[in-house]
């Protein structure tokens, strides 16, 4: 393998891995706190991406305002989901929440279909995102170094939040033992809402970069990132925030290695091979690469 291919592979893997890490992180934040596998997570991306489409197409707002409002839309939909859809059912069973998350997702997809369009819509993205820059002699779109930098900033900020602030410490405590955290006066609504808001924020950021890559949004736009999130989380570990980040990078790495090494005739089997790896993880190492400090909560 020559140096150029290696450099290109590295840049692609790190930028793709950054994106996947953010996606997985948003899923695990909510799962960690309330053990909910949030199937509505994909809609946080879709709503963000549709917001980018609307503001970019029908207003003349500067790009950074469009981006900020797009991220805000992700946060807002996550907030709404928690308060309107999940909170009323939280006292019920886990199954009720799971079904609710499916319902939210299906309803949202129908809403885009009926009120916007069942067909893809072009998302206007400022040109600079896709301008080619040269890094270590390799040409790559600017969005790649941008997502790497953005991810680094977000990971540092989230680490500080979780380690240094009272809210973060309470969230970590609640994710280890929710009942005990409540016994110390940690409000369930507060930590869960915080987890959803972070989840929506990450989805909003990811939506910008995904839209820049695909250039469009359609009603099923959330399904892709949702699946990516699940795979990354299975690989990295469902019970650990660092695990989900590692899972995102490993997933991107495996996926890129497959793209690079598979013969052209086999390339269409890439996803199948990826799923086989996921199944292998579930069989051999179901807790993922990083175990975390999770233990089943006793009932009674």
């Amino acid at each position, binding site marked *: 393998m020559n140096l150029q291919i290696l450099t290109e592979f590295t840049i692609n893997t790190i930028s793709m891995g950054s994106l996947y890490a953010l996606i997985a992180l948003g899923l695990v934040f909510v799962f960690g706190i309330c053990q909910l596998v949030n199937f509505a997570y994909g809609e946080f991306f879709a709503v963000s991406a549709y917001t980018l489409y609307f503001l970019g197409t029908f207003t003349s707002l500067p790009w950074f305002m469009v981006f900020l409002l797009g991220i805000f839309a992700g946060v807002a939909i996550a907030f709404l989901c928690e308060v309107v859809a999940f909170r009323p059912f939280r006292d019920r069973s886990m199954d009720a929440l799971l079904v609710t998350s499916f319902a939210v997702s299906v309803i949202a997809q129908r809403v885009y279909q009926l009120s916007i369009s069942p067909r893809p819509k072009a998302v206007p993205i400022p040109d600079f995102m896709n301008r080619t820059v040269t890094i270590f002699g390799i040409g790559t779109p600017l969005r790649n170094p941008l997502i790497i930098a953005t991810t680094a900033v977000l990971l540092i900020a989230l680490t500080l939040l979780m380690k240094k602030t009272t809210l973060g410490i309470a969230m*970590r405590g609640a994710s280890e033992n929710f009942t005990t955290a409540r016994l110390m006066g940690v409000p369930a609504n507060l930590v869960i809402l915080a987890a959803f808001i972070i989840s929506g924020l990450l989805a909003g950021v990811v939506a910008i970069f995904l839209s820049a890559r695909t250039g469009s949004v359609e009603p099923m736009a959330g399904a892709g990132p949702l699946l990516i999130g699940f795979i990354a989380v299975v690989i990295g570990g469902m019970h650990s925030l660092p695990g989900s980040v590692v899972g995102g990078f490993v997933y991107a790495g495996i996926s890129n290695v497959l793209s690079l090494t598979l013969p052209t005739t086999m390339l269409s089997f890439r996803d199948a091979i990826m799923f086989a790896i996921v199944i292998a993880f579930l069989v051999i190492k179901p807790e993922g690469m990083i175990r975390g400090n999770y233990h089943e909560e006793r009932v009674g």
Partner: protein
Amino acid sequence: MVVNTTHDTIKTDPILNVQSIDVAYGSVRVLHEVSLQVFAGELVSICGINGAGKSTTLKTIAGVLKPQSGQIVFRGQDITGKNAEKTHRLGIALVPEGREIFPSLTVAENLRIGAFGRYDAKRYAQDLEDIFELFPILKERYNQAGGLLSGGEQQMLAIARALVSRPDLLMMDEPSLGLAPAMVDLIFELIETLKNRGITILLVEQNAERALKIADRAYLLSTGYIKFAGRPEDMSETIDITSVYLGDGEGGF
């Protein structure tokens, strides 16, 4: 602090008044019209075998479980059905059975969560100093993960985590369970120290002998019914504790 120790001589209102609560897990009722009182400064023990409903009683008072009927009044306020966050804010701290410390959080972070509902920036540093005076080991282990502590140290952390909120009522669920004998001695000494400092304590213990020795008053729970309420020495006299604990299922009656 002068505290009346027997039920019939009490003139003040109890700090905690549990009146005839029924609690069920699904369709299985585990508490039947349980009533108990705790007065300020008292150490009250609830004894009974495994499954008698001791932990359930504490969890219901703390708001983890909701009673189906009955009333719980704390410092004159009806707290029946209030959730754990609210009861903590009102001054009830529970040291849960099995310690339940946050394993990946440091001792410092465990304590910080312990104070969450009643945090006061101005006095937190002083509260920590008081805690370290009682538990010097926690100062040594301050930046270690809770999960790396020994069983006894974890129990101290669990108690410290409750104390740091300056509770008006400290409830302890089996604090000596699963500890080495020397550590059990230490924990009971500690409970006496806390009592002598005027902290109001409701203690659940399987180790009835030790619990009764330090208690001002005691209750005996058996299969969800209060079978005895009164002075610990009377309880030892009127009830064959051994038979309760070795379990003919009838609470020794």
